């Protein structure tokens, strides 16, 4: 579609708007980076970097604040939940897409409907349940919750993906005497890889930035993922008046995600659009 492509002059305003927007983002993030290398007094007197570069803010944040632990936690939660979701959702989506049976439509509708259920509708009973089972102090609980909450969307997404796959594969496998279960895991599941990756990335971002469930269920500093850990760090730096350190904490959390994003942005963007357009 070449709507505006008459000549380049006409596009100058377009570039202008885009560049302004991007520049704004860059300044916002750039200032935080510079502030994180200054002292607290310099931040509040608007004289950033006057006394030189202070890397000590970073060592303080890194060594004293368990940022490494928060990172490991986030990785653990996102990866283990992310993969388990696929293992649980794909077979279900496959059955719903391929087999006709009573209740198929009902299950599909239930799953779709659950996409509209706000988290505050379900959080209280889950909290009570977890307390009764004395599970509030375990990482497993958070992973299980993430799996359960993300499954309906994933099933819904993969369902339409399996529908696009031809049935000829299964027919050929059946002729060879391959059981349906085996057929699924050895043929259909690998065939669905593009869909699995797309929805996997979508889930990954959602879980990586998840805050509310972790806030409610991760009670100790050893269990906190990055988002909640960052909030804790920020609060603590504020009480000690260490604002330079607080900005350093923000940057420490920001940079790895940013680097990862630079390398994977195409994949991530494809995942997000795929997820949203289908969903």
């Amino acid at each position, binding site marked *: 579609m070449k709507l505006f492509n008459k000549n380049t002059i006409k596009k100058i305003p377009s570039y202008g708007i885009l560049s302004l927007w991007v520049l704004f983002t860059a300044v916002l993030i750039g200032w935080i980076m510079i502030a994180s290398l200054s002292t607290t*007094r310099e931040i509040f007197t608007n004289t950033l970097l006057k006394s030189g570069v202070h890397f000590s803010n970073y060592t303080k944040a890194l060594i004293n604040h368990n940022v490494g632990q928060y990172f490991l936690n986030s990785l653990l939660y996102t990866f283990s939940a992310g993969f388990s979701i696929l293992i649980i959702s794909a077979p279900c989506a496959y059955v719903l897409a391929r087999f006709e049976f009573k209740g198929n439509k009902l299950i599909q509708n239930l799953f779709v409907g659950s996409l509209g259920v706000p988290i505050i509708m379900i959080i209280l009973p889950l909290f009570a349940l977890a307390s009764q089972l004395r599970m*509030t102090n375990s990482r497993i609980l958070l*992973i299980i919750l993430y799996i359960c909450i993300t499954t309906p969307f994933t099933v819904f997404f993969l369902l339409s993906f399996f529908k696009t796959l031809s049935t000829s594969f299964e027919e050929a496998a059946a002729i060879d005497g391959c059981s349906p279960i085996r057929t699924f895991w*050895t043929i259909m599941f690998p065939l669905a890889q593009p869909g699995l990756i797309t929805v996997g990335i979508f889930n990954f971002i959602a879980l990586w930035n998840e805050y509310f469930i972790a806030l409610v269920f991760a*009670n100790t500093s050893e269990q906190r993922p990055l988002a909640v850990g960052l909030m804790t760090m920020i609060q603590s730096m504020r009480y*000690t008046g260490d604002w330079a350190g607080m900005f350093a904490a923000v940057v420490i959390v920001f940079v790895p995600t940013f680097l990862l994003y630079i390398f994977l942005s195409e994949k991530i963007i494809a995942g997000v659009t795929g997820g949203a357009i289908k969903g």
Partner: protein
Amino acid sequence: MKKSIGFLLSILMILAVFSTPLSAAGQQDSNPDAKELVYWSMWNETEPQAMVLKDAIKEFEKSNPDVKVTIQWNGREIRKTLQPALDAGTEIDIWDEDLERIVKTWQPYALKLDDYYGQSYPSTNGKSFEDTVMKSLQAHLKTLSTDKGLYAVPYQPYVVSVFYNKDHFDKAGITSTPTNWDEFLAVCSKLKAAGFTPVTIDDAYMDLPLGMHLNRKFGNPDAVEALVKDRSGKLWDDPKVLETAKEFEALAKGGYMSEQVATNKWPAGQQEVATDQVSIYFLNGTWLPNEVMGTTGPDFKWGQFAYPAVPNGAGAGAGTFGAQGFQINKDCAAPDAAFALAAHLTSGKWDQELSANTFGAPMDTSMEWPVQIKESAAIFASLKSFVPWSGGLAADPDAFPIVKAEFTRLLAGQVTAEEFIANIKSNL
């Protein structure tokens, strides 16, 4: 297929690695007499308080080899996580938070400590523990509980007062701190004449001056609570409310408030004072110098005075004070050890250490207060009655934010005294 199995295996491995320390934690003790105390802390691990407490606990473990203390640094989130954790049966023997909150909220979970207060401990120098704790705080503790019992061990006492920059006062030729509202306005006027911006405050403390002022006017917190809980708006027509609003209006009209006061997001306002731009911080707790130490350095000349007496109201004898406090679980398996730990942390050497490292007030009345808050010691000693935080305005969570927002506008000179009252009445 192989890939997914590989993934699964790696997940299981990660899970195994992470879950081992959790499940193994309970089984390590080989000594059958060993007592384990689990302490949930309101501090974040890097805060000066936490560092002192950590050292103090290490020393305690050394002198009590049969006690092992496990610390969990929760930060202020403990307000939300403690009770659910207790309900869930998590083993927590000792915890701390604001004194008023722990007694009012968690008394049902706490051990009554009256008997322990009567005994002496290594850190109390042969005196009973009771004799080392400020009497005013003990009395206060008893009034907070439902049965006049002692349900907490206080530490880090604080008092709320007006903070000011002594250098500015000297330069403006102000020789004595104001004791009543007229003197306060006169001080502001002198500061302004000397080229200083007199007064500022942040959103986080905005409710304090109004609450304190209304308390002085009405003479008791119950009247303020009734005011803020009144949905009919009738109580707001009390001439005392209008007087109060007028007095604040004068402050705004005189040009005594910082221009930033409406937009100050904590700590922007206290930084205005710390960076020499404003002379007076309207009301804050004794922790203020510590919070801005990174900006001021230790040599900043802090002064404090009690909130002034107000026209047609009570004098300056009432004030807001409090402390942090430790509380012990009523189901604690080793209550003696737990109280000994609390005593160890809140009296003698570690009380002093905590005060010195946080520029905060010590528990022991015979101790000097840090130079930054020296004048708060006299204010604390002179207090005759207790004013709750924000003077009772926070008693109604619905009305409180509305009143606070309108008061911000009043202080910033955006509304008149009459509009202030009318707006509150129409928004309630």
